[in-house]
């Protein structure tokens, strides 16, 4: 049965709350998602491991029992904040006593935690004096895998999205970094991501495709860049080099286009921007879809920027950031649980998709965490971490892993995840010397 998922269906289907059934078009008669047939992916003996990060803002409540499960190991039961993980209990790993050591090394509130969230490096805030000066000092770990494995394998080396609306401040807008000082601007509009995934042109506003001259046009653009570079100084040449990289990437996507199994009709008219929750669900669906169709294997999602001032729950007496500092405390628990719930939605989409003998979630790893530990204090030791998935059976999930305090940094976790993804590194971030040993099956 062919996949049918029109833009309108997609948007309608997306405008539901957690708990409603997922898109019918993505499921077969028994309520399970279609597996992809006939693709390179289906032909592969062993499915690849996918690696994603999922960010939630403003940390967790300070009284740790709101987040940290009381029992350890497989005996754990969800804490108030983690309640929505109950159906995923066997598929997730809760980590306690992992420190964002890189974030702890830099004075500041949210921003150092944000810039080191997935890079494990202390941020550089000397670059620009003040506004926008926060730059990461290294790549985020999922980009390391994307650069090594994704670029050759899939149409999109990685997909990065964010549900933050509004003007982007320089330093809290992304968790994905191609390298030191090179932020990856996340896709912030689900429609735009939809267009990138489904339109034949690989991007844009949904005009009818006229692809036959695309390569020639890009050849021309590439030639113009080279010619201009001959007239310009080193700094300008470097900037054009980056542009040329973007042109080459677009060429590659065009070349891969005919092989795409999941291709859909280009979308129709645009719709108004959905609300904060709907948007998270839409991005979750799109990312799950992109994984399922093997459009990408790596990526990130930011459910709001650091210092999020979203008010997604009815009756919230203040916005998220205000509540994190000023309470009421029970609302801090509720808004944190809400963010966990949206993450659980994403994991459940992967869990509901068969792949090989298991599910997509079995072959995926999603690192879920925040820029802070206790948001009220801006602390960064013992940051909240949940890892969803088994990484192709390599991770012994279903456990609460309570580590000795003050011993492990997030970099050890990143090294372990990179190793499971097939992109091992000998060190990572400011202090990563070895992969966290306790995760493996």
């Amino acid at each position, binding site marked *: 049965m062919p996949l049918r998922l029109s833009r309108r269906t997609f948007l309608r289907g997306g405008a539901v709350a957690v708990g409603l059934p997922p898109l019918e078009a993505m499921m077969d008669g028994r309520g399970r998602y279609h597996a992809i047939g006939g693709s390179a992916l289906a032909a592969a003996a062993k499915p690849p491991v996918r690696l994603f990060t999922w960010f939630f803002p403003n940390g967790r409540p300070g009284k740790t029992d709101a987040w940290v499960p009381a029992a350890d190991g497989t005996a754990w039961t969800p804490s108030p904040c983690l309640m929505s993980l109950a159906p995923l209990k066997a598929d997730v790993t809760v980590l306690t006593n992992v420190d964002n050591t890189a974030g702890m090394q830099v*004075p*500041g509130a949210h*921003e150092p935690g944000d810039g080191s969230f997935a890079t494990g490096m202390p941020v550089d805030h*000397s670059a*620009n*004096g*003040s*506004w*926008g*000066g926060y730059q990461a000092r290294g790549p985020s770990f999922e980009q390391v895998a994307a650069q090594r494995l994704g670029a050759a394998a899939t149409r999109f080396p990685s997909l990065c999205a964010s549900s933050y*609306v*509004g*003007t*982007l401040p*320089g330093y809290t*807008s992304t968790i994905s970094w191609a390298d030191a000082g090179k*932020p990856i*601007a*996340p896709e*912030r*509009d689900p429609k*735009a991501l939809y267009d990138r995934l489904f339109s034949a042109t*690989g991007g*844009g*506003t949904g*005009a009818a495709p*006229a692809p036959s*001259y*695309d390569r*020639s046009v890009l050849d021309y*653009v590439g*030639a*113009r*860049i080279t010619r*201009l570079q001959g007239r*310009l*100084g080193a*700094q*300008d040449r470097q*900037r054009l*080099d*980056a*542009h040329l990289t*973007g042109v080459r*990437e*677009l060429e590659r996507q065009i070349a891969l286009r005919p092989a795409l199994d999941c291709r859909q009709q280009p979308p129709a008219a*645009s719709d108004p921007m959905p609300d904060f929750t709907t948007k998270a669900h839409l991005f979750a669906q799109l990312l799950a879809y992109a994984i399922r169709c093997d459009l990408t294997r790596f990526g990130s999602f930011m459910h709001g920027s650091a*210092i999020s001032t979203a*008010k997604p729950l009815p009756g919230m007496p*203040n916005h998220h*950031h*205000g509540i*994190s*500092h*000023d*309470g009421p405390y029970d609302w801090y628990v509720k808004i944190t649980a809400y963010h966990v719930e949206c993450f659980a939605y994403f994991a459940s989409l992967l869990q509901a998709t068969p792949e090989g003998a298991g599910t997509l979630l079995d072959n995926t790893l999603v690192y879920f965490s925040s820029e802070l530990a206790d948001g*009220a*204090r*801006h*602390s960064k030791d013992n940051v909240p971490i949940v890892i969803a998935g088994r990484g192709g059976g390599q991770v012994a999930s279903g456990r609460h892993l309570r580590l000795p305090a003050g011993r492990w940094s997030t970099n050890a976790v990143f090294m372990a995840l990179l190793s499971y993804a097939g992109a091992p590194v000998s060190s990572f971030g400011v202090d990563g010397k070895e992969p966290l040993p306790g995760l493996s099956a």
Partner: protein
Amino acid sequence: MSVLSRTTVSSLGLALAALAASASGACTGRIDQPGGDGPGTATAAPARDPGSTFTTATAPPPNASSPPTSVPPACAPQPLRAFLRRLTNREYARTVRDLLDAAPALIGPTALPDEQTIALFDDNAEFQDGATGVDRYSAVARVLAQDAVATPARRQRVIGCDPAGADRAACMRSFVTAFAHRAYRRTLAADEVDELLALARLADGDTNRYATARVVIEAVLQSPDFLYRVEAGTPDPATPGLRRLGGTELATRLAYTLWGTMPDDALLATAEAGKLDGAAGLAQTAAAMIADPRHADRAREFLGQWLGFDRLGDLQRDAATTPGWSEALRRSMQEAGAREAAPFAAPGGPGFTDALTSTRAQVDANLAPIYGVPRPAQGWAEVTLPPERAGLLTRANVLALTAPSIVATAPVYRGKYVRERLLCQDLPPPPVVPRVPDPIAGQSERQRLERHESEPGCAACHALLDPIGLGLARFDELGRARAADGGGHPIDVRGRVTGLAAPDFDGAAELGAKLAAAPALPACAVTQYFRFAAGYQEKPEDQCTLDRLRDAFVRGGQRLADVALALVQSDAFRTRTGGQ
């Protein structure tokens, strides 16, 4: 128990964390360096001029309120940093409007690459990333090119001859030559025209007779010659290392600085005739450009980004918790900002100090009830508000922009607005925030904020912010006057702008007047304009340029057009370093 009384205004990391990230470390209270500190000082903050210096009350700068010092004789303006600037999304939209007569609706809200706002402005030449957005440009170019050849009227407008008729070779050559000349903002070499014609020939056999023109438009719109402002310059024989911008390069700089869009045919012709090479020709051209409506647009864009009216588009409130809020009101606030800014954008308009003291306001049916004035019979009307409503800090748009959903914490945000936008004082991010004592039932909003003073870690920054914002506490989160705070306490609006020679004030009107008289205000206005126009945060070597701009600004009665004119005629603007 009301929401307000349950919600404390403690730690207030909430406001400070949202502050711009400054140099480093905790808020020591010393948030700026005295003027004269150049490169090599410990601070990473941009160099300031003496008028904007600032320290805490314990160490007031000696000249904080003294008149601006004159430019030292040794001061020599240095060229602006010349980053290879890509058109901003606004510039792109205006440019295709002028180039193709393209309807704005053709470019969807997310069609162009994401931009980051740094230091209030969306043009951050220093931090642009060339790699992202290539696919977006490609898609938008396709849409625009299709539209440009879609109807006979559009083809006549864009191509001007029949690219499918008997003379199609001649038509395409003339079209390509003229179109690329405007799009690349210079005359193309013969082989550059041939290159485009060769591309067009690939579409010769296309079933669509206009595919040849369409593919040219698509290619040109994606070319770096179009997307970037190329400034190679030629070596200045008199000064090694310095390069003088060529005529059309300078015309392009002028156009994007003063108009935010491409140079028109007349400006390109002026440049190619060499008339911008001399000071007199440049002055004449710049004056004419300033008088053009495109400059008014551009100046309003600056004011909107500087003063925050632009951000009203992002403002989200919940009508359930903020009674009176509506989308229509938000749009009216935005429109009022543009209308009230317009006179300050005009050459010969009022000086900027008026913006802080004027009681004239623009209202429509949505805003009139906010100010408690009669609704205009229709549309917009100018009204005179009571004396306590003097200046932009008392306008609904600024008050709403600077009020979080809990109005009790608004003084922090409002203080931050004044420090950052009007005085150019960036505060460092807060350190790990200590816990402040719990609020005591029955305390007023002011008393709660004053708890910050009990914690040195909080007080260092909040002492700079709260006492400013408290002066505006008689206005609620939508800008309505209020007689009592959320707990029913009378509102004391005495406040302090720490750092000024006479820092104390009583109420919004005095605050506005005090800021209007502060030497830091013109210095900051000029600095903000510089950041907007140059596309980066000022560097130590820009101090001389900033000093001269400030002198021109102050001398002319604080008119923004004077700063623009002074900037584009300066040597800093006409030259660059680096390059081949």
